[in-house]
């Protein structure tokens, strides 16, 4: 049936396992960056990330430990699931930024995106009208929805553009962690969080618009 393996805590044997990986596996809050041998940066070279992911997979995957001791098998299972989780997080810039934010004590829950950002109030109001019209069979609303879609896409692109600049600035600022540098870096993170929330909100609007446009013409 569903087997149980030990949760966190030290695995009894498995002394032959790479020590730095083992330390991450047994840590309460493992460091995704350390698994890849990286320092914490918001910008990442994806080709290099993939290369290291493949190398580490070859080293850690349970297939490599099928005939090892029970302890090593368990370590490998936990290590490769951690590696997969880390890769999934780091290769996506948005997930990566959220991860960094959470490491710095920012709260990045989904619920934050429910409040309409004030600068979007007007657009959201018009969008809801158009969605309502389409639902009640007014095919003319299609055009305004198409326009809204283009508008939101442009906004999203703008945010993405801003984010990549902000990532680069933070990477420089965070290298200088002492005194003033630290508080400047922190302010940048707060700004990044604001952009991420806005982006998530726009993404949800886009999803609704696209669903309405793809849906059965009423």
């Amino acid at each position, binding site marked *: *049936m*569903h087997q149980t393996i030990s*949760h966190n805590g030290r695995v009894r044997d498995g002394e032959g396992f790479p020590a730095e990986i083992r330390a991450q596996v047994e840590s309460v809050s493992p460091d995704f960056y350390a698994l890849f041998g990286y320092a914490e940066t918001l910008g990442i070279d994806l080709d290099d990330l993939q290369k290291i992911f*493949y190398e580490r997979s*070859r080293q850690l*995957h349970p297939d490599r430990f099928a005939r090892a001791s029970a302890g090593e098998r368990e370590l490998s299972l936990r290590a490769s*699931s*951690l590696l997969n989780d880390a890769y999934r997080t780091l290769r996506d810039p948005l997930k990566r930024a959220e991860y960094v934010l959470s490491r710095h004590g920012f709260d990045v829950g989904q619920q934050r995106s429910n409040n309409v950002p004030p600068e979007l109030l007007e657009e959201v109001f018009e969008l809801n009208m158009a969605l309502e019209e389409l639902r009640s069979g007014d095919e003319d609303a299609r055009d305004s929805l198409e326009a809204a879609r283009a508008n939101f896409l442009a906004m999203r692109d703008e945010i993405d553009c801003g984010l990549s600049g902000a990532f680069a600035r933070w990477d420089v600022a965070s290298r200088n962690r002492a005194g003033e540098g630290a508080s400047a870096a922190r302010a940048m993170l707060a700004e990044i969080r604001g952009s991420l929330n806005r982006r998530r909100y726009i993404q949800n609007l886009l999803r609704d618009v696209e669903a309405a446009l793809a849906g059965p013409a009423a």
Partner: protein
Amino acid sequence: MANLLQIDFGSDQDAVVGIDLGTTNSLVAWMDLTGPEILEGPGDERIVQSVVAYTEAGEFVVGEAAREILLEQPERAVYSVKRLMGQSAEDIQGELRLFPFHLAADQDAVLRLRLGGKTVTPPEISAEVLKRLKANAEYATGKAVKQAVITVPAYFNDAQRQATRDAGRIAGLDVLRLVNEPTAASLAYGLDKRKEGVIAVYDLGGGTFDISILRLHNGIFEVLATNGDTHLGGDDVDNLLLAIALEDLATEWGEDVAANHQIVQRLRRAVIRAKEELSFAPGVAIQFSHAGRSYERALTREQFDSLIADFVEKTLVSCRQCLKDASLDPGEIDEVVMVGGSTRIPLVRLAVERLFRAKPHTELNPDEVVALGAAVQAGILTGSVEDKLLLDVTPLSLGIEVMGGVVAKLIHRNTTIPASASETFTTAVDGQQNVLIHVVQGERELVKDCRSLARFDLKHIDPLPAGLAKIEVRFLIDANGILNVTARDVRTGKEQSVEVKPSYGLTDAQVEAMIEESFEKAEADLHERQVREARVEADSILLALEKAKGNQAWDALAEDDRERIERKHNELLTVYHSDNYDLIRTKIGELNDSTMALAENMMNTAVNSALKGTKI
């Protein structure tokens, strides 16, 4: 074949095999020095049909013999049992109209079938197929086979995977890994000769359909996305044709034969033959005769193609979703691999070629490629294949039930496995000591539309005011695609006990009992065989003695010699019908010893008669 004495059963010599446990056909393979190779059983049995029957003599038979029984005594045989793995009686109501499955009266978390008076579960039936493959592999390699890699459809859910692993255990196999069929096929194809590229594997067998898209990178096979349907395959095409034939018979013969399982099974065989021929001919005839009447219906490729158009389209819907999940356009697929017997259908090939805009690979035998790939995976696990590594994904999202019957997703579909997620739970009432977590699999938002997987009961939580206890639960999908759950009390750091109640399938205790039974059965079989062999030996000495008594040598024997033989003769007769084969053997030995003088006399008489030229 080597003789028995040459067989080395040393444990370091065990063969690890790869098994394709198919809906229709099953095969076993291993890694030879030169590469993966299908293992043949006695009589060059290469493919074992996944048909199991329970004979009147109380024995399971598998393969061709079971198929014969299916035609004569359909209630004693079952085919396509893979469709029932990890399912409940409720799940398969739709199938019951199309397949001759006989459900037992009592059903619980695991489905039970009636098979000629015996009640069995799908894993036990599959275990019979596995035992046959295991025996075939031992016959072919001359080695003991205790460990195996078994393939499953990529789209199998947790319950279906667990049922497959249970089948392996019941068959006496240590299942080293469950590997997804399309992924296994990609390993066999040696497509990694191209260092980089994106390939799609389209696997359409008898009962299941899978599509997987992989990225190859220097021997790493990284699955990007998978999709499919665990109840879609050649069987469904057979059912379409069967429905037509039954309708024809109803009008032409004025007789509804649908309820006659025997006729239906023979008719089914006829339509399958026609379907398979039609892949290589522009037209065929479905031919069938019964009780002096005959039926024939011509079927052209065009008619067939329009009959199966919807069926083929269903597979394409999965393919498009899979492309979308992999964030790829059809044109970005470099190569397409075709797996499974139903990909011989020309319309299927055409549809796949059109969708992916690439000529599909069909060089390897589509029936064998999955087993060959399973053997390669076995080689990876034992270390004999070093350059390849599979990184597979979970086909379905995993979530837990939250307020209002809504699903909170924890691990999304197409996440690389092993994968994990944690969630912290607390109590709602003062002093509460249990928390029940309902885990489901599926893509829908509501629990009722997803597949219930299991309920995990966090027990013996320290009684505290509501909301104070904090239990961190970790959900981990392992490399087999099977969920493991552990829990920890955050305050104390102690491991928290979790009791698992699987929604479908056998409990651990039930599997243990079945292993036990099958082991006892094997012992019983062995015992019975020894008894029979002892009796055969007894028969031959009794017959010899009978003959000897008509010989002059018998009369020439001393009185007490004759008496002693008679006594031993009677003693053997007394134990003959017991099932103590040791005792039978002892008595045979004693009788044999008592006849030494007689045998000597006979030899002498024979020599003398030969000299005189007379016959004895």
